[in-house]
């Protein structure tokens, strides 16, 4: 993108985003913003693996859940701060991604996807069955400590907003650094043609394993945040297939394998969802996902490169722009 107006635009955007909670005090609106930031972050985490390297996982809820449960167990059973629990959850997720990855990467294409779905479902089953670890099917609430920043509990929604904004910023900056580095090129190469990549020295299994760990780590952080935000956890929520779906969906709709794709996708999807909710009252079972499904189909059929693809193509019309990074015009 031409440097000329990108940086001022970004600065403006950052300013708005930073100031928003000071201007908007409506709890419902803030909740939507938080959801947007959270799912953007989850999407960014997914995108590293699913977007750049095209390893299309629909089982990222596994790591969301692992992160959520790790920090909750540490907090409820051992009174350890969720800030530490968040990192611990990330590490647990990273470690879990090793055997899961080993198993799933033995397959390619849609069968990889199916295997990831199966592992997330299997984890949900485990947490549903074994009450000794983690409260079984009913889950648990976390004790409400009022304002307790050290235990990641805040009085105002604005504080939660800033925490998740911080997470998103971390996710975006990691993505940016990777995209511009040798690893970014390697990821895209693997996503395009794994065999050709191997032929030029790319250790595909190792790169896939590494990016899966990073992706899992970040997703787990989101899980911890979510529990802290809603004060509740149970296997159905923590390992919800819907989370896996949305993680992939926002990236595909917004622009798979691009830096801002997941953010754009989330804004579109969550805003649509919020509008639907206000028109139809409380979530009428199935409406949100029906609409999501239709949006996904529309994107797949007409613009598989997502909204960012649309933007890029429009951008192509302007002469004098320099191509940047690994990707050409999609």
């Amino acid at each position, binding site marked *: 993108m031409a440097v000329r107006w990108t940086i001022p635009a970004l600065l403006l955007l950052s300013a708005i985003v930073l100031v928003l909670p000071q201007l908007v005090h409506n709890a419902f609106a803030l909740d939507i913003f938080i959801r947007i930031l959270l799912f953007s972050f989850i999407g960014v985490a997914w995108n590293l693996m699913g977007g750049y390297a095209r390893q299309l996982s629909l089982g990222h809820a596994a790591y969301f859940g692992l992160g959520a449960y790790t920090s909750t167990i540490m907090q409820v059973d051992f009174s350890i701060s969720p800030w530490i629990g968040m990192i611990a959850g990330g590490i647990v997720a990273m470690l879990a991604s090793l055997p899961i990855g080993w198993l799933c990467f033995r397959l390619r294409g849609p069968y990889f996807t199916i295997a990831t779905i199966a592992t997330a479902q299997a984890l949900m089953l485990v947490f549903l069955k074994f009450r000794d670890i983690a409260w079984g099917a009913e889950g648990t609430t976390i004790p409400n400590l009022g304002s307790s920043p050290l235990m990641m509990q805040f009085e105002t929604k604005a504080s939660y907003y800033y925490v998740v904004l911080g997470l998103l910023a971390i996710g975006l900056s990691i993505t940016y650094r990777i995209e*511009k*580095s*040798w690893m970014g*090129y*390697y990821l*895209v*190469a693997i996503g*395009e*043609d794994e*065999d*050709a*990549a*191997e*032929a*030029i*020295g*790319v*250790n*595909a*299994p190792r790169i896939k394993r590494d990016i899966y760990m990073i992706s899992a780590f970040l997703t787990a952080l989101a899980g911890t945040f979510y529990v802290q935000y809603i004060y509740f956890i149970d296997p159905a929520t923590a390992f919800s297939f819907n989370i896996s779906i949305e993680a992939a969906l926002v990236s595909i709709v917004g622009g798979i*394998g691009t830096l801002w794709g997941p953010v754009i996708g989330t804004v579109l999807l969550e805003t649509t969802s919020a509008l639907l909710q206000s028109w139809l009252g409380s979530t009428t079972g199935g409406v949100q996902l029906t609409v999501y499904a239709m949006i996904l189909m529309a994107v797949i059929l007409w613009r598989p490169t997502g909204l960012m693809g649309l933007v890029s193509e429009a951008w192509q019309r302007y002469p004098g722009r320099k*191509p940047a*990074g*690994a*990707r*050409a*015009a*999609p």
Partner: protein
Amino acid sequence: MTDALVVSGLSKRFGGLRAVQDLSFTVRENETLALIGPNGAGKTTSFHLITGFHRADTGSVSAFGREIVGLRPHDVCALGLARTFQVAKPFGAMTVLGNVMTGAFLRDRHVGIARDKAREAIAFVGLSRHEATAAKDLTTIDQRRLEMARALATEPRILLLDEVMAGLNPAEIDQAVALVGKLSARGLTIVIVEHVMRAIMAVARHIVVLDHGQKIAEGSPREIVENPEVIRAYLGSGYVHAPGTGDAHA
């Protein structure tokens, strides 16, 4: 002059099909060897075996004295053995520059250095004006050039070229031959699979002929062309006649 690539007793079956049987040949350093044979002879399979895309059932391959059977393709490449594919496999979404940089990253992970090396390789194959073009938008021939540039960026000592001349017109063949010549002049050891006889005669002093997975002849171009087994394999027994009476065929 050391032995760059020593293939010894290489065999591979796929179910009931013996794709490669007991293949052995040696390529000296900086030599250009042509691997020829009718379709289905096992030439590309041999490449897959050498570069680690298929695991050989028996036999050994050593590159500059180092045994490489059992190594994964990326390790084989790291050791200095690069290859192109019969049907080009570009990273479509990336630019030409991006594609080649990906190859260059094997030796140096700095983006700036990789970019410079990539530009060099791109210039070598004559694709500089397409540096910013998306790989999927290139013509087939340019995609093949891209394959070569990408392989070159990994700084190989041995280069395996798989039918880079297929479908080229005579002028393009001359260009390609010149390119192979330049590569050889740089010190590379080259193994080239080809059907275009003219090109083979121009670049290779040493030829190995495969048929049904087995080596049926080996020698200089002149020897090969007059070898009755080779004639039989390509044209059938009806064409075999006493040596010295026929003309070399293209």
